[in-house]
């Protein structure tokens, strides 16, 4: 296994298992109100929040309506990443945010390095579907 796979294994086997090498390779910092993802764009990147929070918003005229807020441990951008959709929301930093950022090209290597990544991603999606099912049931 090469160094890259070793890094990914460390990164995804445990949330606390991140070291400086991983963060240096994939980490990215955003400042308050900086945009991570812009609605309407085609961009195949996925973000994993290490610290801080982000607003998930949709543009309504000249303003952004906040749909929800996501924080540490949450994944962002997985829908466009896996299903070739146009970004459906704008994601804005709420204060300083530190994320890990991955491209489409990284994913097969991430999968090979750690099956936990698949599980983590599926759990994140399932929780969101659960939340959305609850919201829909109240409409």
């Amino acid at each position, binding site marked *: 296994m090469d160094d890259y796979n070793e890094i990914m294994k460390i990164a995804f086997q445990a949330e606390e298992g991140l070291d400086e090498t991983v963060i240096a390779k994939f980490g990215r910092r955003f400042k308050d109100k900086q945009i991570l993802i812009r609605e*309407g764009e085609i961009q195949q990147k996925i973000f994993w929040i290490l610290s801080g929070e982000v607003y998930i918003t949709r543009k*309504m005229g000249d303003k952004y309506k906040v749909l929800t807020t996501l924080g540490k441990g949450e994944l962002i951008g997985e*829908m466009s990443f896996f299903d070739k959709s146009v970004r459906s929301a704008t994601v804005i930093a709420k204060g300083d945010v530190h994320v890990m950022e991955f491209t489409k090209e990284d994913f097969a290597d991430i999968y090979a390095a750690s*099956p936990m990544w*698949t599980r983590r991603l599926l759990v994140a*999606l399932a929780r969101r579907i659960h939340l959305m099912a609850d919201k*829909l049931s109240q409409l």
Partner: protein
Amino acid sequence: MDILPNYLQYGEQTSSPPRGVIYKAGDPIGERPVLYIIAGLVKVEYPLSGSTFPLWMPPDTIFGLVEPLAECERLCVVHAMEHTILYQWDLESFFLAAGVSYELAMVAIRGLTRELRIMNAEFGERLGLSEGTAR
């Protein structure tokens, strides 16, 4: 059957007759909660206030994964609309299979992604959020 994808392993094959209820909202998740459609057609209905929101699942789709991962009882009603042949796993056996098959992992991830995307769109439409968004 000679058309089974080779990533269908560590579980077992089952089937449902036309109009058979596979599970209902409120049901416990059971021993083998994760299902893959080998052949047939399945309708998933999420409850709304006074109605339901349907999702149609064609072959080579996974369903039943949300509740064991979200650790909740069944959220929706699932019917087989035709005679449907399924493959089912317990959660750990599913992850074992997905751990050795990138293709199966992608089927699961794309399936949940698509389901969430459709639900988001439905939610947005019902709240009128689709108006004025960039397309």
